[in-house]
Structure formats: C-alpha cells, structure tokens
C-alpha cells in the first residue's frame, strides 16, 4: 500500500556561513505516513523542512514531490511554521489568519470571498476554535495559536503537511486535539511530517520516523527502527529508552 513516494530528497546539503547544517541527506517519505523527525537541538530538523519548502536555499541537492519539482507541486503541500516565528501582536483576527491559507490558491491580487470564508470557518471548527474566530490573535493562548496555525494549513487542503514543532508549549488537551487531527489526515491518506521533540510519545503518535543529526541517521517504520541503537547514534549519549513500559 505504501508504494507511492510522496517526498523524495536527494543529496541535500545546507550550510549557514560555511558551517554545514545538513549534510548529504537522502530521504524517501512514503505516501500516507505520519512521520516524526527527531534529533537534538541544532540537528537541522527545521532546516530540513525549510529547505524542502524552498524557504532556505540548499547549496546542493534536489527535492521532488510526487516525482516533480516542488515549484510545480506547491498546491499539494501545506506548512505549519513554528508558533514563535511570527509576531502574535499583529493586528488581525483568528479567522483572518486562517483565511491566509486560501491565498495560495487565490493567487495574486484576487481577494478572498464568501467561499474562502466558509472554508476558513470549517477549518476553525475542525480545530475547535470556531467560537474564537473574531478574537484578536494576541488574546489567544499558546495552544490556541497553534490550533489557528493548524487550521490555516488545513484550509489549504493539501496532500502533504509539514509541521515544525506543533506540540511546542501546548497543554495536554491541545496536544491530544492536534494529534487526533493528524491521525485523521493520515486516515485520508495524507502524508504528515512533524518535527518532534518528545521522544516518549513517538511510538504512540507516529508510524514513521527519521533520525537526524546533520546527517540522516535512519528512517523507516517506528516499530522497526525506533530503538536504543538509533537513539544513541542520534543523540550521542548512551540512550536507554523505557518507552514501552
């Protein structure tokens, strides 16, 4: 069933001022997986996502989405940036932020109309934020802001979702709400790629995992490769997981 390759990365190398951040990454992500990217701070997890999405320019390597270049397949891809990457005091409402998810399909100049508003409201409902639609975004809690970002990506109705630490700084309720939505996406055969920090929850949440520390350490099904050996290779310390207990 998982034969289609949704995302393929070849020899990707990224450097900031001569210091390599990602080194010669080869990666194949099958369609329909819920994949965690794990690795220590500075391992290049966010950089990997940003390079795949063309936000950062790699010095070498290529990326393809369903066999074609990312530029051609943009409409299939949605992105949830780190919550801390924007200024939440920006003068706008929750609904307005979610509506931004429709801007890509609208293209230049055309304004969002009733149809786009309806899509945004539906996405807000999916993340349980409908009653906050007119709230100024600075008056939302961290978890609510994260849900708004998720709703904005859902509006794009993509096939592949890239999420940069969607569980960072959210409470348990929000974490469960978010993971349920991600699992629903997987059920619809969408591919979801998540930069993740909490190793304890990897086996519970994800079915696919990539270990990253500048180089790719391993990638594959969680049940096969999520073990002490790979964790030690990635984190550099003798890692003993007691996850299954």
């Amino acid at each position, binding site marked *: 069933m998982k034969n289609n390759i949704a995302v393929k990365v070849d020899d990707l190398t990224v450097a900031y*001022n001569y210091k390599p951040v990602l080194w010669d990454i080869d990666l194949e992500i099958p369609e329909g997986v819920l994949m965690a990217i794990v690795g220590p701070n500075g391992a290049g997890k966010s950089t990997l996502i*940003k390079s795949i*999405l*063309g*936000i950062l320019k790699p010095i070498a390597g290529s990326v393809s989405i369903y066999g074609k270049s990312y*530029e051609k397949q*943009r409409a299939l*891809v*949605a*992105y949830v*940036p780190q919550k801390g*990457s*924007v*200024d939440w005091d*920006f*003068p*706008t*409402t929750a609904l307005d*932020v979610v509506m*931004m998810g429709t*801007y*890509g399909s*609208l293209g*230049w*100049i055309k*304004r*969002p109309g009733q149809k786009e508003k309806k899509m945004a409201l539906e996405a807000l409902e999916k993340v349980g934020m409908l009653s906050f639609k007119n709230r*100024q975004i*600075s008056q939302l809690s961290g978890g609510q802001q994260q849900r708004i970002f998720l709703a*904005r990506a859902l509006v794009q109705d993509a096939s592949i979702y890239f999420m940069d630490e969607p569980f960072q700084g959210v409470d348990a309720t929000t974490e469960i709400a978010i993971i349920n939505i991600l699992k629903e996406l997987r059920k619809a055969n969408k591919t979801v790629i998540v930069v993740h920090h909490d190793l304890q929850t990897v086996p519970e949440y994800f079915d696919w995992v990539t270990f990253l520390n500048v180089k790719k350490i391993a990638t594959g099904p969680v049940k096969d490769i999520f073990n002490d050996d790979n964790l030690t290779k990635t984190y550099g310390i003798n890692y003993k997981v007691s996850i299954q207990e």
Partner: protein
Amino acid sequence: MDITEYIQLVFTDYTLRTITLGTAILGAVTGMLGSFAVLRKQSLLGDAISHAALPGIAIAFLITGAKNSNVLLLGALISGLVGTFWIRGIIKRTHLKSDTALGLILSLFFGFGMLLLTFIQKQPNANQAGLDKYLFGQAATLVESDVWLMVIVTGACLIVLLLFWKEFKILLFDADYTKTLGFNTKFIDILITTFIVLAIVLGLQTVGVVLMSAMLLAPAAAARQWTNSLGIMVFLAAIFGAFSGVFGTAISASQNNLSTGPVIVIIAGVFVLISFIFSPSRGLLFKQIRFIKNRRDLQLHKTLAFMYHIAETHDDISHPHTIKILNNFQGFTKGTLQKLVDKHYVTLHGSDWSLTKEGFKTASNLYNQQSENNE
C-alpha cells in the same frame, strides 16, 4: 497672525493653502506606509533612508548647479534607494544584524552628505544658499507642482495598496509561509520598500532629513493603540498623519513662523502620547483603571465567597449572622460590606448581616466558575 486669522487665510491665501494641503497629503501617505514599516519592525529603516538621501541632494545640485526641487528630490530618491539596498545587502551577506547595518549606512551617508553640503557652501555659486533647508525642512518652499507630485505618488500608493492588500498583509505577518504559498516575496518587499523611500523623499523638503522618520513612525504607533485591524490601523495612521501636517502648519504659521517640520513632528508626538495614555484597550490609563477595579472586585468577591460558605451550611440562606465573624477575615472592611448592600447581595439588620437570594446566586456562580477554571 493668530489662529483664527490663519483659518481664514487657509481658504483665501494661495500660498498657505498650498502648504497646508501639501503637509496634509504628506502626513497621510507617510502615516499609511509607516504602518507597514512599524509592523515589519523596520522602524529605523525610515531614519536610515532619509539620512541616506542627503548626499543625493548635494550631488544633484553639484551636477546641475540649480536648485530645482524636482531634480534634487530625484537625487535624494536615487541615493535613498542605494542606501536601502546596501542595508539589505549588508544584512544578507554579513553576520551584522539589521540595527548595525542601519546605523552604519545612516551615519556614513549623512556624514558624506554633510561633507558635500559644507563643500557646496564654500563655492562662489550664489544659488547654493538654502540647500541646508533640507536638513530640517521648510514647508514654506512648497509650490503647487510639489503638491501635485505628492498627490500623484499618494494616488499610486493607494492603488498599489488596494491591489496588493492581501499580499502585503500576509508578508507582514508571516514571510516564510507566504513564500511556501508561491508568492514572490522579494517583489512584494521591494514594492513596499520603494513606496516607503518615495514617501520619505517627498517629505524631505517639508520636514527634512533629520526628522522625517518621525512622520513615518509616530502616526502608525499612535494608530496601533486604537485598533486590532490592519485596515483600520492604516486608515487611522493616515488621518493622524494628515492632522499632524495641518495642525503643525497652522501653529508654525500663526506663531511667528516657527520651523514647520519640527512643529509637525511634535504634533505627531502628541498624538502618540494621547494614544498611549487614553486608548481603551492598550492605553496606560485604562490598564491602571482595570487593574484597580479588578483588585476591588476581588476583595468584594472574597468577602462574598466567605459569606457564601457560612450561608451554605444553613437551610435558610438568609439566616442572619453577626458582622463580628467577618472581622477576622482579610479583605473585609465596612466599605466592602456597604458595597455588597448597595448591590443587594446582602441586607443588614443591626449588627447582623444576611445573604439575599441574589447574593447567594452570584456567589455560587463565582465559586463554581472558579473551580471550573482550576480544572
């Protein structure tokens, strides 16, 4: 000339009308564009651009030898743009942070401009007198063609704003995300920056190199205090900017010809001050009032909650109790008791108090709400 005389003159005197109109339009367009600079956290960019324009003015004069304001402004535009792109280049290609790059370009260009100005002043060319007016601006030199130029630029700016409104908004909020949607963020960025440079250059004649950035920032900073909508913020900033221009001109013209630029900037500063203090949601005054009110309410609620716990244990909630049992309880004063009576939560009978039905209901709501929040 006093202020009433001035108001009469605005409608009859051609020069005064031109100047007032010019400063009003200038204030509006800089206020509008300033909103974008402020929200992009590029407040200092305006300062760097206006200072970077000075050598352009001097070089344009050296080349043409004439003081044609359009030619000088073209020189200012070119050197302003050069300065802007150097700043961007430095940020992109070196480890330097944007504040360093801005400060560097600002002082380098301004220093070079001052050097050229002093050089020009030593020249025998009689035309050179008054070039230093560009430092602090002189609204009195505005003529009809200057105002027309402002109208054209403002019109173009409005059209571009309306066309690319959604692109501007999303770029300001989340540039990386905008890129993933397939928008050419560089184009949007250059569009905004070019208009900011244009507006600044237009204002140099009126407000001057040194104070120009205040025209960009002050109306926007004031407008941000009053609204949580980008559209209303841009609109308000334009209004504040325009009024700063008009009031500034009026005051400077009626008070013994005070220098217009500084007066306009001070008026804009007054808008900022008023907004910081009196804005209902973000202002200091209402914040303090809300704080005091909350503290009082909390005191009241604490006393009410205490009463509720006592009343709860009785079948009759209005069973009277002596006031003395409240005495040891913190938050209780004669004042709070009186307030509770005023709100009809409590009735007094001599030295006894009893909770009313309404008071009991309010207290039980408060109490239940609290325990819900704790969950």
